[in-house]
């Protein structure tokens, strides 16, 4: 089982690495989002210095900015520091969603059939799909994080942010990535054409992202949106990673929040793995 899983995942990743065209757009998107959202759409730079004839001093403006960051954006040093976690989540969601295209192609080109007549378990076919998309998306997540750190005016990590915090943040993203990969791999194995995959994915991803705290703080959410956002795993992963990235050293209350988010993500991931496996098994059994 693990040998088969390794063989199949290895094949997919080898193809991926050999084809730089498959990696570069992902990186480009990351840089683009960071630069665009992080700087151009920075809400703290939108505060007018003159309000109804009342002229704010630079110091006052700065104070307002800091208050917005601390009260609305969870104490982030800059807007981009707040946003990075959300952009990583966004990248994970989109890469997972469209990563299934390779699997649909495998079906259409008959490669899947050669797997189905080989003496390997259906589980290894399914989990190799999960694993390959996860590795691809997590690589991009990692690169996005690094880019955010080195970008001028980029991510400013919380004081005391260390290796464990890094691992914690990436762990939260990995759980989200795994769960999403389970869902979208099962979907990709179940559909017959790329068109239907893209249609479903387009329909699903935007609501998923925009009902989470990935891009906007929940302060402005109406109550209905808040109740969705509170159970959205994207919110959980983003919040957990953001907590570490923004604060570095956590207070015990923050640590508890982080832990509960982690538990939530873990349970969700296991549930999606099981459901996805059942769906994939159905999709792979002879018709």
């Amino acid at each position: 089982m693990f040998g088969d899983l390794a063989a199949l995942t290895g094949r997919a990743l080898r193809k991926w690495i050999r084809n730089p065209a498959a990696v570069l757009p992902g990186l480009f998107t990351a840089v683009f989002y960071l630069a665009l959202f992080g700087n151009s759409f920075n809400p703290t730079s939108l505060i007018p210095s003159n309000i109804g004839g009342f002229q704010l001093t630079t110091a006052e403006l700065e104070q307002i900015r800091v208050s917005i960051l601390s009260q609305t954006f969870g104490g982030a040093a800059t807007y981009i520091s707040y946003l990075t976690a959300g952009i990583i989540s966004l990248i994970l969601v989109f890469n997972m969603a469209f990563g299934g295209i390779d699997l649909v192609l495998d079906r259409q080109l008959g490669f899947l059939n050669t797997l189905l007549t080989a003496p390997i378990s259906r589980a290894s076919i399914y989990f190799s799909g999960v694993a390959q998309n996860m590795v691809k998306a997590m690589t991009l997540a990692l690169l996005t994080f690094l880019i955010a750190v080195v970008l001028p005016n980029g991510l400013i990590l919380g004081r005391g942010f260390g290796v464990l915090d890094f691992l914690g943040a990436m762990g939260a993203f990995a759980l989200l990535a795994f769960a999403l990969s389970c869902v979208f791999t099962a979907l990709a194995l179940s559909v017959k054409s790329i068109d239907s995959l893209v249609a479903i994915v387009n329909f699903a991803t935007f609501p998923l992202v925009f009902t989470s705290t990935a891009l906007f703080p929940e302060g402005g959410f109406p109550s209905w949106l808040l109740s969705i956002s509170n159970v959205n795993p994207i919110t959980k992963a983003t919040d957990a990673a953001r907590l570490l990235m923004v604060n570095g050293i956590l207070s015990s209350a923050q640590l508890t929040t982080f832990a509960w988010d982690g538990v939530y993500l873990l349970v969700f991931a296991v549930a999606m793995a099981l459901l996805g496996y059942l769906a994939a098994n159905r999709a792979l059994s002879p018709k």
Partner: protein
Amino acid sequence: MPEKLVRKVTAVIQAENLSKLYPPRTRAVEGVSFKVDEGEVFGFLGPNGAGKTTTIKMLTTLASITSGEAKVAGYDVKRESSSVRKSIGVVPQELTADDELKGIENLILSARLHHVPRSESTKKAQDLLKLFDLEEAAQRRVRTYSGGMRRRLQMAMGLVHSPKVMFLDEPTLGLDIQTRTKVWDYIRRLNKERGLTVFMTTHYLEEADGLCDRIAIIDHGVIKVSDTPSHLKEKIGGDVLTIGLSDGEDLTQFFNSVPDVSDVSREGQVYKMKIPRTERALPTIIEGVTKRGLKITEISFTKPTLDEVFLEVTGRTMREEEGVQESWIQNVNLERAT
């Protein structure tokens, strides 16, 4: 084939009343029954859409069986599908080798997925690359392969785990005559040297004729006839022998007296007759003619082709069934066959 009589003959593939219904109402295969013995090359001959691929899909556990039973390598296809998968090699109609991987990488991947020990897989891959004349292309990505090279690689991929039985779906589809002849040689060699049992499909008459020990003609999901190619042709009435003689007595009566000869006709000194197997009757005929002091001025015989068999059982020629692009191949086949 005496060596086949000596060997203990066991059925490697056994299908009984196999049917496939694609909902809502496509009856792709309707109650086919057949048996393929160990070491045999068995061919399914039929036009596009006859149900050849569907039959292979059922036997290789890819498609569910709507009704009927099938055993492959002694295992029940429905209930013991994983044991079936361990015993078979499949070369599908479509080309599934990975374009972005090298030829050898595709082979090694196939070996790993069939649990060939790592210590053996490289050697096996090398052997097969050699057998299929792909050694030089082994390190190139499949993207750069020609259609014929892809087919050969595909066959190698289906063999890398030394299966007992091989399913070949249209192994020479889209190949030129030269490459097709080569592929036939490979199949013959694998069958002779390794005792591989082969189940193959084709819609090339010459291929079925030259390659298969036995064939089944399938049309609209139904097996019309099944036998050895020569028996099938014999049933059509055998060869037509044309023999021209020097002036002398009328030999119509003599020809009629030769066993198996029928339908003797005479035009001047040229006689025509039907014989199931000319090779067998010819010595008697020549001897009889010479004994009566006559000289043979010309002699020729034509073998019936499977096309005639096909016409007889389906009411159409294979050519009518083929697409326009394919018809030239049939023409070439017939020229070569006659």
